[in-house]
């Protein structure tokens, strides 16, 4: 099946009609890292334009899920499936996922001394544009596009000439992730704690930046520990991930409940030995 089939606009109403093409469908996903089973039968369905928040205790497997979606080789999928726009995502190499519109905003962006942010971003953008059948950007076009997004995120142009993430503050690294997302215009963005380590003002700027990237067709999975980001970026659905599965799903009200009460009450409601799968 060709991906192009899904580009045809269908119903403009978002997340309501069952006829919407599914952006991402995760079924009974089992993932191990170095022999430990981290995800144990996770299910998640994301429609076009939907924003799903994922919360959960430290070490529950949120980043594992994000990394598996992006294709990190350290994570071994031992069962289940992930379908992205009708294709088997798990069979696609990392770069192909990115070229087809999957984007991960890293919880811990990697520093690469000596590689300028501009050079990296221009190469990445051109790979993605080429995959979309669009013309590559020259240095001038690139600066123009980059400039617009940097302004929105209140980032100085000098970021472009600095080595990628090297010596960036925690907040600057997160802004740089959102900047990359803006440049690459993904169909599905997974934001892994993009709000962590941001001061109040930065959080507002980053949230506004991400909100500006929200479109009726672009889907987002937002992993966070805090309500603050979700005040700006209101989710359509909220999930709590624990023990390797989604143990509770709800609307935006679930965010406030978690913020107020923590996870204890949800974990207590689980059956003593939770069966894997849904």
């Amino acid at each position, binding site marked *: 099946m060709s991906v192009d089939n899904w580009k045809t606009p269908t119903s403009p109403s978002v997340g309501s009609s069952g006829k919407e093409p599914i952006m991402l469908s995760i079924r009974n996903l089992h993932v191990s890292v170095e022999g430990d089973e981290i995800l144990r039968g996770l299910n998640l369905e994301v429609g076009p334009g939907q924003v799903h928040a994922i919360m959960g205790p430290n070490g529950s497997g949120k980043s594992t899920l994000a990394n598996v979606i992006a294709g990190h080789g350290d994570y071994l999928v031992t069962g289940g499936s992930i379908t992205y726009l009708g294709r088997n995502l798990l069979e696609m190499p990392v*770069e192909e996922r990115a070229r087809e519109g999957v*984007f991960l905003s890293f919880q811990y962006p990697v520093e690469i001394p000596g590689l300028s942010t501009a050079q990296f971003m221009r190469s*990445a953008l051109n790979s*993605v544009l080429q995959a979309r059948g669009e013309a590559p950007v020259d240095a001038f076009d690139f600066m123009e596009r980059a400039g617009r997004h940097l302004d929105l995120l209140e980032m100085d142009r000098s970021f472009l000439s600095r080595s990628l993430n090297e010596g960036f503050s925690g907040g600057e690294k997160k802004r740089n992730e959102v900047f990359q997302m803006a440049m*690459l215009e993904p169909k599905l963005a997974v934001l892994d704690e993009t709000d962590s380590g941001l001061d109040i003002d930065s959080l507002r700027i980053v949230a506004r930046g991400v909100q500006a990237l929200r479109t009726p067709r672009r889907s987002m999975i937002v992993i966070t520990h805090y309500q603050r980001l979700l005040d700006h970026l209101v989710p359509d659905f909220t999930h709590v991930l624990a023990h390797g599965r989604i143990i509770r799903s709800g609307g935006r009200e679930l965010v406030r409940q978690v913020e107020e009460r923590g996870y204890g009450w949800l974990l207590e409601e689980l059956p003593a030995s939770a069966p894997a799968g849904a």
Partner: protein
Amino acid sequence: MFDSLSRSMESFHELLPYLPGSTLIHASRQRAMERFLTRGLPGRRDEDWKNTPLGSPPIHPGLAFLAGEGSAWREPPMLAGAFGVAFSGTAAARVLAPEQPDWLELGTIASVLEQGSHSHDLLSLLLQRPSSLEDSLDDLNTAYLRDGALLRVRSGAPENVVVHLLTGLPPGRDAIYGRHLVVLEPGTSLTLVEHLVSVDGAETGAFVNGVTKLYLGHGANLEHLFVQEVPGDASLVNSAHVWQGTESSYTLRSLLVGGALARLEARVQSSGPGTITDLRGLAMGRGQQLHDHFTLVEHAHEGGKSFQSFKSVLEHQSRSVFNGKVLIEPGATGVDARQGSRSVLLSDMATAHSRPQLEIYADDVKCSHGATVGELDQDAMFYLRSRGLSTGQARALMLRAFVADVLPGGLLETVPRGEDMQSTTALFSGPVHRWLERISKQEDS
């Protein structure tokens, strides 16, 4: 063994009449050949050659070339604004400078040799050996020395003088002996570009034994760039012998890309206090190539500073060797010597040898060294690929970042074309880009 020695002496005597120089010079050649034959080519028994098997390359130059019958060649374009000397290894050196200002003397070594006692001072500079030298290649070079560039920068010279020394290697398996003599008078500066190519870009299996003698006067400033991109399975051994006067500064940037076996030696000796020495090099190996950087920095005076950084990127079964010796002699107090080597292996069949050696006989000195060998960082690879870059592209970008700081002026962002090619930065960027271009097209994971 004895047989082959006497045959070598015979060959030498046959060739001697065709070599430039007076009887005096020929007597020196004869003695050098005798010394060489007693010792033979460096081999595994020599500590400094342990990981660099030179084997037995053809050592006698071809008669046709010595007789000057080698064909002229079309030199590649010289660097913009540079004075040049081209030496094809098969024909006499040619000075490529329309007119010479009074602050620059540019000539050929053949003419120094022919003038005999008239150029006594130059001759002794040309034949001086660094005290650290143990092997016999310098002797072999003296015995068969054909030609090279003579270069003297006099006071009154502007700051940005560039001299481009181009050596073109002929196709085939000839032995090529060149020697350059470079003298910087006190307070002068020079960018010296030594550039080894093959004639008309053809593959060559030549054996090159090249020596460059460099003398820096008080406060002189030399930037020495060495680029070697020779196609084919040549064996290339080049040595820079440097004498640094008080408060002079010597910078070396070396790029080894071609040949089957290529070695660059830098033997730097201080002849006064306050010297600054900055040596950096990059080897890019593939197939069965072996690239070797050998350095010896001898601090014999107070307050010298030396910095060394050598890197290699290795594919397939290629090898790199770095031998870095720092010698701090008694009385050379306040010396600061730093050294590091880093290698990236792109295949598990590639090997990098690194051997730092510090010998310190003085007090109050700062010394450090470090060596790392590894693969490209997997988290960084994943990060780049997650932005849409192929494995090859991601590797090439990471390698670009890795190599940039050992190249003069860094690495240009794209492959230099047209007029941009004629800068020293472009001269280094070109071969590096061509190498990385290949990596970036690789599609495995």
